[in-house]
C-alpha cells in the first residue's frame, strides 16, 4: 500500500461525493416532471413515445399496475432480445458473418441483459454480431437500468406520499430516465471515451502483420456507445470477453477513473433524490454514509490483500515489491496501466454496485481479495448498488433496522413518519431471504452434480468459490465472475438464468408491495420519542443489521471457499 494508492482512493471518493448533490437535484426535477435544461430539445421526443404507445402521461397507478407494466415490458424485451440473437445470421451489421447464437446461450443472455445482470457465458468477439451488440444488448443496457431506477423512485414515492394508492406511472418513469438522464450522459461521455482511444466503428476485424511478421486479427466494433452505458447503468456486460480490462474498452488510467465514476454516480445520487423527495436531504446523507463506510472497508481490504502478493512466489527469484518502477503485488490477471490500487478499487466498486464490469480477473484475486467482491454482492449490493436496486435494497434493510430498534425500546417503529407494521417487515424479510435461497440453493446443487463440477477450472476450495460466485453474481444481478468456470453449458445457462430471474423479480414484487402499502399510510407527526433516522446511531445500527444478516447467512459458505483457501495458501498448499 502506498501514499499514491491512498490518494487515488481519496480522489475517487471526493468526486463521487461532489457529484451526489448536483446529479441528485437534477434527477429529482426529472422525476417530479419539472422542466430541465434539456426539456426544449427532448420534450417533443418524449411526447412521441407516449402518443405512439397510447400512454396517458398524467395518469398514475397503484403498485400492482406499476409492477405489471414493468413485468410485461421486461418479458417483451426478453422476447425481442432472444429473437435478435437467434436471427443475427440473417440480419445486417454482421461483417464477421457470425451465425445464430445457440438456444441455451441465447436464453441465458436474454435473461441476463433484461435483468440488468449482464452475466456473459459467451465470448462476445466470436459470438455476437454488431447488430446484436447495438439493437439487442445496448438497448437493454439502457432500459434495464431505467427499470431499476424507476422502481426505486416508486418506492421513494411510497415513503414521500400519504393516503394514496398512486406510486407513479411506470412508462413515464422509464421514458424520462432514458431520455433525460442516461442518453445525454452516454452521448457526451461516450464521445470522450472515443477521444481517449475506445473504438466506435462498424469495420470488419482488422488483420495486421506484427513487427515479428506474425498475423494478428484485432476485433473492432461500436464499442464506446456500449461501454459508457455499461458502466452508467451498472450493467457490466463487456463488448469484449475481457470486459473493462480490454485495452479497447478501457485504454488508460483516465478512462478507468471515468468508468469507475460512472458506475457509482447514479447510485450515489439516488440517495440524494431520496432525501429531497422525503423532504430532508440529511435522510439521504445518512444512507450515503452507511454505504460509504461499507465501501471504504471493502476497498481497503482488497487493496491491502492484493498489494501483498501471492506467498507461493516468495521463494522464487521474483520482485513483487511496490516501488517507483512497478506497483508489485498480485499481478496475475491484472493490467499494468491499472496496477494494484486501480484494480482493487474497480473490483470493489463493480460489486458494491450491481455492475459486474471488471478491469482485473476476479478469479485470480487472492482468496480474501476475491471474498470482498463476493460478500459485497451477498449483502444485496446495497453499497450504492445497482442503479435503483441499490437504493431499494438498502431501504428494505432500513425497514428491518427500524423494526429491530423498535423492538429494543418497545414502541411501534416509524420511518420518515410512516408506521412500520407487520406487513412491511414481512415483505422486507421475504425479499431479503430470496437472495440466500437462490445463491446457496443453486450452489449446493451445482457442487454435487457431476455436470456442475465438470465446468470448474480450478480445483480445491477455489473451485467451490467459482460455483458460489457464479450463483451469487447471477442472483445479485451483478454479472462479474470467477471467469474460469465454463458457464456456457446447458446446466449453467439454465440454472444461472433462473437465478437471475429470481433475484430480480422475486425481490421486486415484495418491494413494490411495500411501496404501495407505505403510500397508503397516514403521516405520523414526529414526537419526542421518534427515533432519528438521520443520525449516527441509526447509521451504526443499519451497518450492524446489514453485516449481521449477511454474515449469519453466508459465513458458512464463505468458510468453505475463500476462507479455507486463504489458510491453505499460507500453509503452502496448491491444488
Amino acid at each position, binding site marked *: 500500500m502506498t501514499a*499514491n494508492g491512498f490518494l487515488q482512493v481519496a480522489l475517487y471518493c471526493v468526486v463521487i461525493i461532489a457529484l451526489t448533490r448536483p446529479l441528485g437535484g437534477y434527477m429529482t426535477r426529472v422525476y417530479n416532471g419539472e422542466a430541465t435544461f434539456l426539456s426544449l430539445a427532448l420534450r417533443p421526443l418524449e411526447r*412521441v413515445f407516449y402518443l*405512439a404507445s397510447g400512454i396517458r402521461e398524467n395518469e398514475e397507478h397503484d403498485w400492482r399496475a406499476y409492477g*405489471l407494466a414493468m413485468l*410485461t415490458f421486461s*418479458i*417483451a424485451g426478453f422476447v425481442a432480445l432472444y429473437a435478435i440473437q437467434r436471427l443475427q445470421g440473417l440480419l445486417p451489421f454482421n461483417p464477421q458473418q457470425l451465425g445464430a447464437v445457440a438456444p441455451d446461450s441465447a436464453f441465458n443472455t436474454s435473461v441476463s441483459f433484461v435483468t440488468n445482470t449482464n452475466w456473459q457465458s459467451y465470448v462476445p*468477439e466470436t459470438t455476437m454480431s454488431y447488430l446484436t451488440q*447495438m*439493437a439487442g444488448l*445496448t438497448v437493454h443496457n439502457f*432500459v434495464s437500468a431505467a427499470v431499476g431506477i424507476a422502481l426505486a423512485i416508486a418506492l421513494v414515492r411510497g415513503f414521500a406520499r400519504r393516503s394514496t394508492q398512486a406510486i407513479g406511472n411506470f412508462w413515464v418513469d422509464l421514458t424520462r430516465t432514458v431520455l433525460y438522464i442516461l*442518453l445525454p450522459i452516454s452521448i457526451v461521455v461516450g*464521445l470522450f471515451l472515443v477521444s*481517449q*482511444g475506445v473504438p466506435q*466503428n462498424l469495420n470488419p476485424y*482488422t488483420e*495486421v*502483420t506484427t*513487427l*515479428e511478421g*506474425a498475423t*494478428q486479427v*484485432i476485433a473492432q466494433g*461500436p464499442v*464506446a456507445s456500449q461501454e459508457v452505458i455499461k458502466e452508467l447503468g451498472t450493467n457490466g456486460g463487456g463488448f*469484449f*470477453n*475481457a470486459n473493462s480490462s480490454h*485495452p*479497447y474498452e478501457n485504454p*488508460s*488510467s483516465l478512462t*478507468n477513473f471515468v468508468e469507475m465514476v460512472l458506475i457509482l454516480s447514479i447510485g450515489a445520487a439516488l440517495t440524494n433524490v431520496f432525501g429531497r423527495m422525503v423532504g430532508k436531504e440529511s435522510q439521504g446523507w445518512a444512507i450515503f454514509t452507511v454505504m460509504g463506510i461499507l465501501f471504504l472497508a471493502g476497498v481497503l481490504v482488497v487493496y491491502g490483500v492484493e498489494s501483498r502478493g501471492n506467498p507461493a*512466489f516468495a521463494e*522464487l*527469484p*521474483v*520482485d*513483487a515489491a511496490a516501488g517507483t518502477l*512497478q506497483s508489485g503485488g498480485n*499481478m*496475475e*490477471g*491484472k*493490467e*499494468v*496501466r491499472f496496477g494494484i490500487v486501480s*484494480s482493487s478499487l474497480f473490483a470493489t466498486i463493480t460489486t458494491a454496485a450491481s455492475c459486474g464490469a471488471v478491469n482485473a*480477473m476476479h478469479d*485470480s484475486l*487472492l482468496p480474501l481479495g476475491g471474498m470482498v467482491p463476493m460478500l459485497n454482492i451477498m449483502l444485496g449490493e446495497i453499497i450504492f448498488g445497482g442503479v435503483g436496486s441499490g437504493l431499494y435494497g438498502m431501504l428494505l434493510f432500513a425497514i428491518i433496522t427500524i423494526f429491530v430498534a423498535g423492538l429494543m425500546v418497545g414502541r411501534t417503529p416509524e420511518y420518515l413518519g410512516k408506521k412500520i407494521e407487520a406487513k412491511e417487515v414481512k415483505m422486507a424479510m421475504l425479499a431479503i431471504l430470496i437472495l440466500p435461497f437462490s445463491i446457496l440453493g443453486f450452489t449446493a446443487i451445482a457442487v454435487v452434480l457431476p455436470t456442475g463440477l465438470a465446468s470448474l477450472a*480450478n*480445483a480445491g476450495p*477455489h473451485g467451490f468459490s467459482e460455483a458460489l460466485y457464479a450463483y451469487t453474481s447471477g442472483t445479485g444481478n451483478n454479472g462479474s465472475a*470467477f471467469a*474460469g468456470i465454463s458457464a456456457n453449458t446447458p446446466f449453467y445457462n439454465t440454472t444461472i438464468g433462473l437465478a437471475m430471474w429470481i433475484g430480480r423479480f422475486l425481490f421486486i414484487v415484495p418491494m413494490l408491495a411495500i411501496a404501495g402499502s407505505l403510500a397508503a399510510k397516514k403521516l405520523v407527526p414526529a414526537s419526542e420519542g421518534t427515533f432519528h433516522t438521520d443520525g449516527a446511531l441509526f447509521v451504526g445500527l443499519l451497518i450492524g443489521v446489514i453485516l449481521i444478516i449477511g454474515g449469519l447467512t453466508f459465513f458458512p459458505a464463505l468458510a468453505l471457499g475463500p476462507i479455507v*483457501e486463504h489458510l491453505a495458501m499460507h500453509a503452502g498448499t*496448491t491444488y
Partner: protein
Amino acid sequence: MKTYVFPAVMMTLLMTLLTGLAYPLGMTFLAGRLFPYQANGSLIERDGKIIGSELIGQNFETARYFHGRPSATTGPDPKDPSKGVPQPYNAGASSGSNLGPTSKALVERVGADANALAADNPGVPVPIDFITTSASGLDPDITPATALFQLPRVAAARKIPEDRLRKLVEDMTTGRFLGILGEPRVNVLKLNLALDTLSAEPR
C-alpha cells in the same frame, strides 16, 4: 392484458430504434468525424502497412525486441477447431488465465518462467508483471521495471550500448495521469518501433 401488452411492445420498439440504432449509429458517425484515428482502433502504419494497434499488445519472442507480458489467450486448434490451443495475444478472443492463487498450474508456470528469465539478467529478480498473465491477454504495456530488466538481452542482440537503451526506455515511459492516476508504464509496441528507428540510424 391489452393495457400492458400494447405499450410494452411499442416501448420496446421505440427504445430499440432510439438507443439501439439511432444512438450507436449516430455515435459512430460523430466519432468517425471527430476522432477518426481513435474510432478506428488507433492503428499504426509503417511503410504504408498497418502493423498493429497502439492499444493492443502483440507477441514478441525474438531477442532483438522488448517482450510483453505472458498472455493466456487461446485460438482454435488448426487440427480440431472445436478445441482451443494457446495463441498469445489473440486480439480476436481476449481472456485472462483465470487461475486462482492456489492453483498448481499457476505456481508451476510462474516458477518455470521466473527461473528461465533469471538467465537473461543474472542476479536481478524478475519483475512480477513479467511472469504473470494480464487480465485481457492483450496488455500493451510493461512496467518500467520489466523494460529495464530486458536491457542486457536487447543491448546484446542489437549491439547498442545499454545506456542508450535505458535513455530510450525512460523517454518512452508514460507516467501516471496528472501524476496521480494509474501506474507508470511502457508501451511495448511503441518502444520496439522506436528501437527499430534507433537501430536504423547511422552511428
